[in-house]
């Protein structure tokens, strides 16, 4: 069944979210390199034909064409994670995972934008984006502080889910826009655990410890 093609930009953290999911699911896939910066290829006719919204990444699975990071993650979990560990079917856990996916696309969006601003000088108010990113990280740190009191290491339930995959990149890459990890001890602990997961991979900005 797997006939997966990822339209990917190596430095794009949303592409990385999908690469993480593909890796953790142990899936083989082809990549097509899309030069977002400086090429802006994601906003040119060839890519717009696949995804008129011009967002990255795009994943195709046979004739299914998916865009939107959460849509891709949810579909990958539904099709290729039959045990349901990444997207639990239990209503409460399902709701919490989807809540954090929403968080990753809304409250965490300033972190994505702050990083792009810092790396590629995209439009935006850098101090405001940074402040909003810190606020989102604080919400995450408060949540994981509480989870650790319950003896839990993951955002939802007792194992890693799509929530962790969707949230990891922004925090792990925060030094790209000069937000350190000093203020977030619970998130430091969490990313150390995350890095040990089977199928985990790094990207530029998230070092390999050799």
């Amino acid at each position, binding site marked *: 069944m797997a006939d997966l093609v990822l339209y990917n930009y190596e430095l794009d953290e949303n592409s990385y979210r999908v690469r993480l999911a593909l890796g953790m699911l142990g899936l083989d896939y082809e990549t097509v390199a899309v030069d977002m910066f400086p090429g802006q290829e994601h906003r040119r006719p060839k890519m717009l034909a696949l995804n008129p919204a011009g967002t990255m990444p795009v994943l195709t699975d046979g004739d299914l064409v998916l865009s939107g990071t959460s849509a891709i993650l949810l579909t990958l979990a539904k099709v290729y994670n039959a045990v349901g560990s990444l997207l639990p079917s239990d209503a409460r856990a399902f709701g919490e995972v989807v809540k954090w996916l929403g968080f990753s696309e809304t409250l965490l969006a300033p972190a994505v934008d702050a990083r792009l601003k810092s790396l590629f000088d995209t439009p935006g108010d850098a101090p405001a984006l940074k402040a909003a990113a810190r606020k989102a990280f604080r919400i995450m740190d408060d949540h994981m502080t509480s989870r650790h009191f319950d003896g839990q290491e993951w955002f939802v339930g007792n194992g890693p889910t799509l929530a962790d995959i969707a949230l990891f990149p922004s925090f792990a890459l925060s030094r790209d826009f000069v937000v350190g990890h*000093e203020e977030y001890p619970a998130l*430091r602990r969490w990313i150390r655990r995350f890095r040990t997961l089977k199928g985990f991979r790094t990207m530029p900005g998230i070092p390999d410890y050799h």
Partner: protein
Amino acid sequence: MKLESGFVPVALSSHIEPGTSTGAVVEQAELVVWRDNSGKVHVWEDRCPHRGMRLSFGFVRGDHIACLYHGWQFDTGGQCRHIPAHPDLEVPQTIKVPIYRAEEKLGIVWATTASDAELADITMASDLAGLRSLYVDCSLEHALAGLAVHGFATAGENAGTLTVDGVPLFIALQVVGPQNTALHISVPGAQGADISKRLARWAEALRFALESPELAGMEVA
């Protein structure tokens, strides 16, 4: 308090797991706080002598910490022991990171650059364990004033006790910057999950109040 005037709290002990490192900032001075695999904690200047990279971005292997940039490895004395680009080189003694005095007490890691400083002799009724570190966007003076509202009883410089829900909290304050203060909070060990979560929520409400424009009328649930 500055590092050269006495012991400053820089992290909760429980937040520095064996084999890990983190950064900490005291009045704009950058530190690396790391724990070797034998469990001993170290606090150094956060600067690799090679290219100035922050060592806190690096990683711990056994009793060495390695710089992320070029993999230079330093032993627990701060002495460089291995340079991957020159594996056969006997590393000169001059390649050394400034190391500070570090101690653990009351569930907290403390550090100082002063050779004669003593860690305040504070005794609590029971052994303490870290609850959480609270990073607040306010000045030290503002934080102390906010704590005073709750009957904070000082014990040593920039530290003291406070009772919440019948639990005696020990709070030590770290000046990160002019408008950034860390409150390291520890509690008598072996609190249950529910009480710990309740105290953590109290701390979050305290943070909210401290960051509000006015302290007056501060309500902490």
